[in-house]
């Protein structure tokens, strides 16, 4: 039997001599620092969720009907009459939310340990492109069930393009293919959601990993293992403080995967709507252009950006500043390698100012999420009866907008003009867990 396998292996090798070296380059001979901690699970988990979305998505398309008249009914058909349809749909809807949980934590890891810094700028830029495409993908997927929040969410988000001077209104009609989100909109969003954007996403993920494997992984100490001592148990020329990705990190990530799937299963089987956050109450009512939901708000993962949009007021008779602010919030993240000029990568050895700024960024981002989701609008009157809710919410929200953008301004000044007092960075990685 072993003989048969080795003969098949030889047969393939003769015809594709680069296959085995490629595998070795990216798996058994990809040397990763051995001190990865908890934060380094999220990259592999993002890949796992991507595969989950594609596989469950394929099965959903087998029963989903792409038409404004039938979409809502077909989703309920999947939930009730398709064998295991409810499980497939919950895996897809929960997966969408967990995708953002994982990606947000993955991005935070990158900021915290300076993974975006030279020589990994390209990895970071490709990652930011993945994030942008992921947001477009999630938005269009949210429209497909054609519930009332799908309809109104689509209307509000597409209307953002209407703030662009001169061409705005025509652009909105061009995107929707109608004067309101309608059958034409649903059909084109379906096409983009199930084929166009997933293809782009897959390509970007391949490039993201390829770019990473060119320069090698960063680690919690931000120390370049390539510049440290050479020679490990597997290779005399490879970094001493690195280990082969396979099998060490594959088995470690398998454990992480097991833990993550357990949490995901708990949501899927016991709280699939997650209290109205993963699947919203108003989306269990069919789309109706005559009935506006009491609170139109996007899915939770868009709420921080949506809050920035809402908190920035109109000037000179146009609301485009909020739109610019919202997209600017994402653009600034992408430009981080050139904003943060600090030489030291990891937060472990960076100045106090950076640590505080990072804390402010996290708090502002989470607080903006609460503002965007309408939580502050409920909490303020409950905690402070009698106050003017709009004034208070705007004051709080704008403070948090200031905190978010302030992070970038502060970090640039802090690192550009040499205010940062860093701690000495060790020669080699401090040992792993």
């Amino acid at each position, binding site marked *: 039997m072993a003989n048969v396998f080795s003969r098949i292996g030889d047969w393939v090798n003769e015809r594709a001599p680069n296959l085995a070296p490629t595998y070795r380059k990216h798996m058994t001979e990809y040397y990763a620092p051995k001190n990865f901690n908890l934060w380094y699970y999220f990259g592999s988990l993002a890949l796992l969720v991507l595969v989950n979305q594609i596989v469950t998505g394929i099965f959903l398309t087998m029963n989903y009907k792409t038409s404004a008249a039938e979409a809502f009914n077909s989703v309920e058909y999947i*939930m009730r009459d398709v064998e295991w349809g409810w499980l497939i749909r919950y895996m897809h809807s929960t997966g969408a939310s967990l995708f953002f949980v994982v990606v947000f934590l993955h991005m935070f890891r990158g900021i915290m340990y300076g993974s975006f810094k030279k020589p990994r700028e390209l990895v970071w830029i490709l990652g930011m492109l993945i994030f942008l495409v992921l947001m477009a993908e999630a938005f269009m997927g949210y429209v497909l069930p054609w519930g009332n929040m799908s309809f109104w969410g689509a209307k509000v988000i597409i209307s953002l393009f209407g703030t662009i001077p001169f061409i705005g209104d025509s652009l909105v009609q061009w995107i929707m293919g109608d004067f309101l989100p309608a059958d034409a909109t649903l059909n084109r969003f379906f096409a983009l959601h199930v084929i166009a954007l997933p293809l782009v996403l897959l390509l970007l993920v391949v490039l993201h990993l390829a770019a990473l494997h060119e320069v090698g992984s960063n680690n919690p100490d931000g120390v370049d293992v390539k510049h440290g001592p050479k020679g490990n148990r597997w290779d005399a020329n490879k970094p001493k403080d690195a280990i082969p990705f396979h099998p060490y990190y594959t088995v470690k990530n398998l454990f992480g995967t097991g833990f993550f799937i357990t949490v995901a299963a708990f949501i899927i089987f016991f709280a699939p709507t997650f209290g109205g956050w993963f699947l919203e109450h108003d989306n269990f009512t069919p789309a109706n252009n005559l009935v506006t939901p009491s609170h139109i708000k996007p899915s939770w993962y868009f709420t921080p950006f949506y809050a920035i949009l809402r908190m920035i007021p109109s000037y000179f008779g146009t609301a485009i500043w909020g739109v610019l602010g919202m997209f600017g919030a994402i653009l600034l993240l992408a430009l981080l390698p050139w904003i943060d000029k600090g030489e030291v990568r990891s937060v472990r050895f960076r100045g106090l100012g950076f640590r505080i700024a990072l804390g402010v960024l996290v708090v502002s981002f989470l607080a903006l999420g609460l503002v965007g989701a309408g939580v502050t609008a409920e909490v303020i009157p409950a905690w402070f009866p009698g106050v003017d809710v709009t004034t208070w919410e705007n004051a709080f929200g704008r403070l948090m907008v200031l905190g978010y953008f302030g992070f970038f301004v502060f970090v640039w000044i802090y690192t550009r003009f040499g205010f940062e007092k860093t701690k000495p960075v060790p020669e080699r990685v401090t040992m792993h867990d």
Partner: protein
Amino acid sequence: MIKRYLSSLALALGLAAATVPAFAAEGGEDLPSAGANVADKASLQRGAKLFFNYCVGCHSLKYVRYSRLATDLDLSEDEVMNNLNFTGAKFGEPVISHMPADSAKAWFGKDPPDLSLEARAKGTDFIYNYLLSFYLDPSRPVGWNNTVFPNASMPNPLWELQGLQVAVHGAAKPGEEAAVEKLEIAQPGRMSPEEFKGAARDLATFLEYTAEPAALQRQSIGVWVILFLVALTFLLYLLKHEYWKDVHESH
């Protein structure tokens, strides 16, 4: 190392926990809980009986098939067809009310909505409290009003059971209508207030079931899935531990 690992873990969990109050804050008005338990088959059966006696005259359940009701509520085909199906539909067909849409609009001002997904759109607690909160109001077209859903077009379908409820108004502020302070039973119905709460709970439970029949399956399967995954994760941990022994030894 341990300290650093723990602080890292604490930060990750802290970030995750920070989002929890946000999730918990969702859920709308603070209505008293219905105390519905969708796994309670007897409650579901009583709720179904109430629905088909008092609701199906106006409201459909277009996503619910009679045959599925039989399976999920532990009823035989004969029991469903003789006791619940008053519309003459076939066993495999969905529950469609016979009320003509045109007349409904003339009678109530709007079509009675399909109730299949009502519990997911509005909440089980909403349905329960709504059913308890009808009161006589001669100023309304059909003579009924509701404190949970003011100016609803719907008359109280369960008045025979609950009795006739009237509103006790507080003192009116100048220029405003007096707010309803509480509701009182003016003329008792066939049920005591406690019995009627039970009936409203059964109906709300039944509608929670129709909104998501899969809930029965997912909760019973879920326990085994989680147990399996916990065991699997433990094995994967042992596997990781085994492989990483030589990494830990090498320094």
